[in-house]
């Protein structure tokens, strides 16, 4: 009994930790002009999360095609998600992180699991930790347990589930909202098995997701229904970052009559189940709200602080003097650093491949090559000798 009273406050510490950063991964997976709406979906969501405060450095935007500069686009340099063309989604301040043929299954999984090469810029990496909430939004053409990428390959629900599991194992997220708008979308999250994922999709198995409406001047459908009604909620209800609307209210706004398919929501992985999932704020995933700590006026005497700094300065000088004196007696730490750098340089030399099995030593290969060459020369010499007989 005594034991549990000691443990309880500590346990509650572990359970109710808050998140301190928000990230968004927005992926369109289809290419070509007739999939205009998928890119418009993603750009609309990009605009929304940016408006609600997620900085560009924490949004990973994957666009497999460039609709704004497509020769068929009657309005060059723009992308619209509505026939009224009131809002240019392309705007003047968008940052596409992965574009064109960079949008592949491999790159997506590498992004999620952070298995990227060392020269990958920070803006293309998902630098999350156990206090980050992540919004993953995907759209494209899919089927039962797969989502097509670029008409060339597909990601299966199993791969996605395994990638999320690796993220969970490495503590790369606190809570995740997975949102997908594609045909048979709900099958994509059916294989997830990692905790703290809230998943929602546009349509059940054997159901199609439909586009909302077409713009006859653009000539193609401009947005999908499920995304359209999500956006309608986000844009009309969630006006500013102080909004206290919950995910439950967002999910309740789904109207199957309007969406023309059955959106699904998966709560069972979420800690606390349906109640906890529904009570999360929309801003926990779509915005970037932290609990700031306001400090009062002047707490400390400034002259005192300046004296402190001077004292620290003196302390450092003293340390340096001692350090110089005792340099010879401290070989230990230098040894460690040296070892680390040598490991680094070894790593840098290593070549990369998608599946690298084992490195063969260069010498063996060269010997085989030399032997083959010598053999050929020998055969040629023997042949000419026989001929001359």
């Amino acid at each position: 009994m005594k034991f549990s009273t000691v443990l309880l406050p500590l346990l509650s510490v572990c359970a109710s930790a808050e998140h301190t950063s928000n990230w968004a991964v927005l992926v369109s997976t289809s290419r070509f002009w007739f999939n205009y709406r998928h890119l418009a979906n993603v750009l609309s969501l990009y605009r929304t999360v940016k408006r609600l405060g997620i900085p560009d450095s924490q949004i990973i935007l994957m666009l497999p095609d460039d609709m704004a500069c497509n020769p068929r686009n009657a309005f060059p340099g723009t992308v619209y998600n509505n026939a009224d063309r009131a809002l240019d989604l392309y705007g003047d301040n968008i940052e596409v992180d992965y574009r064109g043929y960079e949008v592949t299954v491999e790159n997506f999984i590498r992004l999620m699991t952070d298995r990227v090469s060392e020269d990958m810029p920070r803006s293309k990496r998902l630098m999350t930790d156990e206090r980050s909430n992540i919004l993953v939004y995907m759209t494209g053409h899919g089927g039962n347990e797969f989502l097509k990428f670029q008409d060339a390959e597909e990601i299966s629900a199993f791969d996605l589930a395994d990638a999320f599991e690796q993220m969970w194992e490495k503590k790369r997220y606190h809570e995740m909202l997975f949102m997908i708008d594609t045909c048979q979308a709900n099958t994509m999250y059916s294989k997830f098995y990692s905790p703290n994922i809230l998943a929602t999709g546009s349509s059940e198995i054997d159901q199609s997701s439909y586009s909302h409406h077409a713009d006859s001047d653009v000539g193609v459908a401009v947005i999908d229904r499920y995304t359209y009604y999500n956006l309608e909620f986000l844009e009309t209800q969630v006006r500013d970052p102080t909004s206290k609307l919950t995910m439950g209210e967002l999910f309740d706004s789904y109207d199957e009559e309007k969406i023309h398919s059955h959106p699904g929501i998966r709560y069972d992985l979420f800690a606390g189940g349906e109640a906890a999932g529904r009570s999360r704020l929309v801003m926990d995933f779509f915005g970037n709200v932290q609990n700031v700590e306001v400090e009062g006026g002047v707490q400390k005497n400034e002259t005192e602080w300046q004296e402190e700094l001077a004292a620290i300065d003196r302390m450092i000088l003293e340390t340096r003097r001692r350090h110089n004196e005792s340099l010879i007696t401290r070989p230990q730490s230098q040894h460690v650093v040296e070892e680390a750098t040598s490991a680094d340089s070894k790593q840098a030399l290593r070549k990369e491949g998608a599946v690298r099995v084992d490195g063969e030593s260069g010498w063996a290969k060269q010997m085989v090559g030399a032997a083959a060459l010598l053999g050929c020369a020998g055969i040629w010499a023997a042949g000419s000798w026989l001929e001359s007989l």
Partner: protein
Amino acid sequence: MPPPAVAAADASPATHTDSTSTSTSTSTSTSSQSSSNALDAVNARPQPPPETKESLWLRRSVILSFWAVVVLLGLPVWWRTTAIYRADLPLQGMTDWADGKSCKPVFPLRIAVEAPLSPQEAHHLLRTTQHALDDLNEFSAHHLRLMLADPPLPANASQQVVSDGIGSTRSDEDIALSIRLIPVETGTTPRSTLQPYSPTLDVYYMPNQIPSASSTGSPLATYIAQELHKIFAEEQALLASLLFSTSGVHTAKIKSLSAETAAELKRQSTRALKYAPTYHLTFSLFTPTFAPSGWDIESALQQYLTPLLESFSAISNFTVDTQVQLYATFSPSIHQPEYDEDLRSWSLRKEDLSGFINAAEWPLSPSIGKGPTVNFVLFVPDQNQSPLLVKENGGNSWLIPQWGGVFILNPPRDSDTPRILGKEALTPAFHTFSNQLLSLLGLPQTPASLPLRLSTLKRVRAASLIFSASSTLGALARLYQALPSIPVPDTVAKSVDLTTSHLQQACDHLREGRFQGALEHARTAEAAAEKAFFERSMVGQVYFPDEHKVAVYMPLLGPVAVPLVMAALKELKSIISGLRK
């Protein structure tokens, strides 16, 4: 050879009720005897001559050679080309590290006591104080060990024994705190003062408070023990909660960790950035107008920040950059500042503060460098929106956990905004920034002595690095078992070995009380563990469920396998029937 279908029809005549009369089956009830004999002679199938031994062997050897090619060449080639290389990892060892079985971190702190006493008296005092200390201590992993400073120096010479607390003076002797016992005649005794810039505790006592050789306890010993316990209380709480929350095996024996302490620790850990060997500090000046367009940042940094960063150099390195952004406007989605008649100032609501940073427009977090970026934003409001304060408490600065700090510098009321902010104008801002930096780096609040806090931070960081590297090892081991389809190259195994060896060394250093060495080893271990986990080629990109594998192999191998298997079965059958005869 006759077509087998006819032979089959012949063999089962009774079922063929409507077989034609011309058929020469053995059902001869309707046909005449004489004609049937003639027809039999005509239609009787000549039996093939018995196979010669040679052709039998030829056929069998052909089938056998096909099978030999398949089994001896095809299968190995298929196996070789489709196998996923997985280096052997010491899974059990990795799991042990993650479960905290390989290393129970202990933090033995050496405390040197300088006493102007005879050796016997000093030893006795030490022993009684140690007893009192052990009685007070509730957290067994963290214990203080008193020892006599050698040689016992007179009080006036002890000024030189100022240990810096940053680097160990002698690597084998890491002294966390030294206590100077100073005899006095006046004032309340015993009393003590902690020196703010050196890890030294001065204890004043009256000579008659020294415990006599016969007594088992004394007020002086108890007092010193209590003081020490107080000094290290926060460190103990930090380490205890760290040990508890990460490994879980140490069932916390800390009764003193009250709810408030736990909440405060949680707040601190939420605020503090994760440990990184290098942090990048960005100082930005934002203003909605054209002024101020410059600031005397270099000398301000030199004077106000450099000492602080230098004092952290044993734990982390820092890089610094600065920027000035003019015409920086608020995000349109937050509530704009409102004029408050009572305060005679413009005010921001507290709930809007997290949206104050206009993340979409303000160029923050540059994607450079390796380490995490800590942002410090100095905002100078427009002259006609000044002074700008936080509505709830009238403050002008706030801290954003794990991100950085913001300070609003209101220009003087009755003069224009200066074009260039001088060093003096920046003083309050930098005072705030340095406090914010300290809490973002996770420096504990107590005790008052900076070197002690730094060495506490060093221990906490070393412990947390050990835990995080261990948990990465555990995660890798679990994934290795859970996802058999991802390749694991040898470099991962090497990194794992490097990690475990450095973890072991870090753990040994901790046990011996050499915390700087422990931190360095833990840092290397953490880097190696990250490298192992994030190995680039370990991407399970094409996961095939078993039914997919069947679907791929069937059309390919089915047509080949059927004749092979059928022929083999047939031959086996004939061999068996031949043996039976």
